[in-house]
Each structure stands twice: as C-alpha cells, then as structure tokens.
C-alpha cells in the first residue's frame, strides 16, 4: 500500500512534467517511477500521505497563506536592512524548543523558519532548533520560542501530529 502511494505520487509529478499521454512517455514514466521507488522508497516519510485527510488538508491551505504572508514580510525586512546605509543588524544564534515530533512536521517547521523574517535554521539537536537571527531580541529560550516558533507550530500541529 505504501509503495503504491509513492508510485502514484511520482507518476503524477512525471505526468505534470511531460504533459502528454503518449504511450512512450507513459512507459518511460512507469520505469522511472519504479526505479525511483525501489531506490528511495525506504527514506520517503509515510506521514506525508496523511495530509490528504480533509481536515488536515484544510489546515494546510490555511498554513499556505500564513506562510506566504510571512515570506513577503521577510523580503521587505531584508530590503529594509540591506538598503539602510547604517546596516541595522544585530545577529546571533539563539536556541528554541519545538513540540513537534513527526519528521515531516519538523522539516516544514525548519524550512518555514528559514523563509520568515530575519531567521534561519542552522541545526536541530533533539528537541532544540538553533536559529541564526539577524536581529536578536532576547537571549531567553522561552521568549524566543514564543516569537519565532509558536505561530507556525500551532498550525503544523494540526496538520502533521
């Protein structure tokens, strides 16, 4: 069942890429999908399939807009810092704590943090994320967690946990 879902996902991406239903394209697609599945099927996280549940999917759409808004804000933040002649930066690496346990949820969290204003994930050890922050506001772990992680975690919890 798991292998079939993987095959289906890879095949969908192939069909979107080639955008044709010619039998030659389909044959190559099936072969490539089988090969990729045999090679990488073990490391593909099965939790990823859970998002097709309607309630989780709804929160994924909500999450997309929250993420898009954060990304646009982050671009204006970088623009402000780069174009200012005094270069107003105050960088440092802070430590925050996450409550998420699934691999997929953590991956999404780390990548989202990288694309939001002024923060970039450097490493994850256990439950702790190390984050390079361009404008450090406090050295306290609790407070930083509140500012950086909380607003994404609330939604990601509903999608992946």
């Amino acid at each position, binding site marked *: 069942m798991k292998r079939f879902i993987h095959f289906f996902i890879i095949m969908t991406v192939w069909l*979107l890429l080639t955008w044709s239903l010619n039998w030659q394209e389909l044959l190559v697609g099936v072969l490539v999908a089988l090969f990729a599945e045999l090679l990488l099927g073990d490391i593909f996280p099965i939790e990823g399939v859970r998002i097709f549940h309607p309630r989780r999917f709804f929160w994924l759409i909500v999450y997309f807009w929250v993420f898009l808004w954060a990304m646009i804000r982050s671009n204006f933040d970088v623009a402000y810092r780069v174009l200012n002649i005094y270069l107003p930066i105050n960088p440092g690496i802070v430590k925050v704590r996450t409550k998420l346990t699934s691999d997929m949820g953590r991956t999404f969290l780390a990548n989202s943090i990288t694309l939001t204003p002024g923060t970039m994930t450097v490493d994850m050890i256990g439950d702790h994320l190390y984050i390079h922050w361009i404008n450090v506001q406090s050295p306290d772990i609790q407070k930083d967690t509140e500012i950086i992680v909380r607003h994404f975690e609330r939604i990601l919890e509903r999608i992946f946990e």
Partner: protein
Amino acid sequence: MSETIGYILLTVGIVFDVLGCIGLVRLPDVYNRLQAGTKCVTLGTAAILLSVLFFTGFNAISVKALLCIWFILITSPTAAHAISRAAHRSGIRLWKGSVLDRYAEDREGAEDKP
C-alpha cells in the same frame, strides 16, 4: 489583463532578486549573507516563474514553471540550512558584532570541534 499581472510579477521578482544580490555583497558574514540570499532569491524567482503562468496561460510550459516553484521552495531553505551548518562545523566564526552564539556554547564539549 493577465499580461499586466505578468509584467507586475516579473518586475517584483527582478527587484527582489537584485535586493538579494545587494544583500550578498553588503552583509558581513556567511550566515547573514545566506539569509539575504535565501529569502529574496526564493520569492524573487518564484514570482518570475509565476509570471510565466500569466503570460502563456495554463499549458505544458506553465505547469513546469509551477512545479519549479514547488521544488525551489523545498530545496532553497534546505541548502541554506546545510551550508550554514557546514560553515559552523568547519569553524567559521560569526561576525564580530554578533551578540550571542548558543550553538557554539552547546558544542563546547563536542569532540569534532576544530
């Protein structure tokens, strides 16, 4: 109408790409530079690819562009994460104006510290 939206998206994308490049030159160390590079270039390139959708309509070309947006959104932050982690582990210090470095503090006792 859709061409106008396409041109607007194209302009926004190019502006943000240029800002990312300026950041790459102006900011002091590898971590800050990665920040500018990742954020601006991701949204800039995504906007340029999205403008393809408005120029050509929904067909084979624009579907490829949309898939490329998805791939960039996944790979760009992952690459930044890998580069910054590797830089820190190979002993590159933060810029001298940095206020704190919890990662180095927690790795003081680690044996693979250079």
